[in-house]
């Protein structure tokens, strides 16, 4: 046979219940019906306290369950949309810095050719030597593109592996990762060059002209 279910009353609640019980006993002895009704109500109140606590715990557990659901949605969005999108942005950075570095190298090459002509024209050798050093430094500095590009490619690789693992885990759990074309949140930034729907200088000019600027 099971033991009786404990009332699970806290100390203060036990004292409250004892007071109510004494009041009820007193009311019965005095044949005081209204006082007995009040005492019975009070007894009810104290006995129902543990039940209220249980309900509060159930409510909190429900909130937690709902939170877990949102967490799944976050993971799905991350694997299906945000990680691939972030990798695309990093590829854009590599491309942009690469083009800029090449342009700098092209321009300094052109200056070198000019320098050869200056040397042939008999310009102060000390001056041309100094210019050559500066041009060399300029070219050397472009090495940053190689170094940063390598770091970015490494990070892209890590992100792609994380994305793959997350996708497999989600699918194994019966959750379909969000599509790559998931709608963009309204507050997301749109950057020129990297985002679809980015306004060009011409678009900006037209918009401003329409607005009277």
């Amino acid at each position, binding site marked *: 046979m099971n033991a009786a279910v404990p009332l699970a009353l806290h100390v203060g609640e036990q004292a409250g219940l004892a007071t109510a019980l004494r009041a009820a006993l007193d009311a019965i002895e005095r044949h005081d019906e209204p006082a007995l009704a009040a005492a019975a109500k009070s007894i009810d109140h104290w006995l129902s306290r543990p039940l209220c606590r249980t309900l509060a715990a159930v409510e909190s557990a429900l909130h937690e369950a709902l939170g877990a659901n949102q967490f799944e949605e976050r993971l799905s969005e991350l694997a299906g949309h945000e990680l691939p999108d972030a990798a695309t942005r990093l590829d854009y950075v590599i491309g942009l810095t690469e083009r800029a570095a090449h342009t700098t190298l092209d321009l300094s090459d052109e200056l070198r050719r000019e320098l050869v002509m200056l040397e042939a024209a008999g310009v102060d050798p000390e001056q041309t030597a100094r210019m050559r050093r500066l041009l060399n430094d300029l070219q050397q500095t472009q090495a940053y593109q190689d170094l940063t590009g390598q770091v970015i490619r490494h990070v892209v690789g890590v992100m792609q592996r994380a994305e793959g693992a997350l996708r497999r885990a989600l699918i194994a759990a019966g959750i379909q990762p969000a599509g790559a074309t998931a709608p963009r949140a309204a507050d997301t930034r*749109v950057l*020129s*060059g990297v985002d679809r729907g*980015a*306004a*060009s*200088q011409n678009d*900006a000019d037209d*918009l401003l002209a329409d607005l009277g*600027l």
Partner: protein
Amino acid sequence: MDKNLRILIVDDFSTMRRIVKNLLNDLGFSNTAEAEDGNSALAALRASSFDFVVTDWNMPGMTGIELLKAIRNDPKLAKLPVLMVTAEAKREQIVEAAQSGVNGYIIKPFTAETLKDKLTKVFERLGIAA
């Protein structure tokens, strides 16, 4: 245009401040100062006299659009021309800048020609001889 105009360049990237400064120098404007976000820009504008502001949008601390609004809401600065130079290319943002009283909007990356063109337009509209 008056080559002695004092211009404040606001951008959180020192490289971009340097590029804008060099471009302005090439155009004959050598009286420039720099600030790295809206807060320091606003402090500089209130501390001394400037004729023109070139600002980025996305900066930590106070953004360019917040700076623009603060300028327009300050009776002493309200008429100061502001040119936004930014990679923010969302139509809503261009509209917001226009509605907040921007004088010009340049999308990064930009050319020296675009900067010259927009500056000339701003000056023309303000009635400063180009």
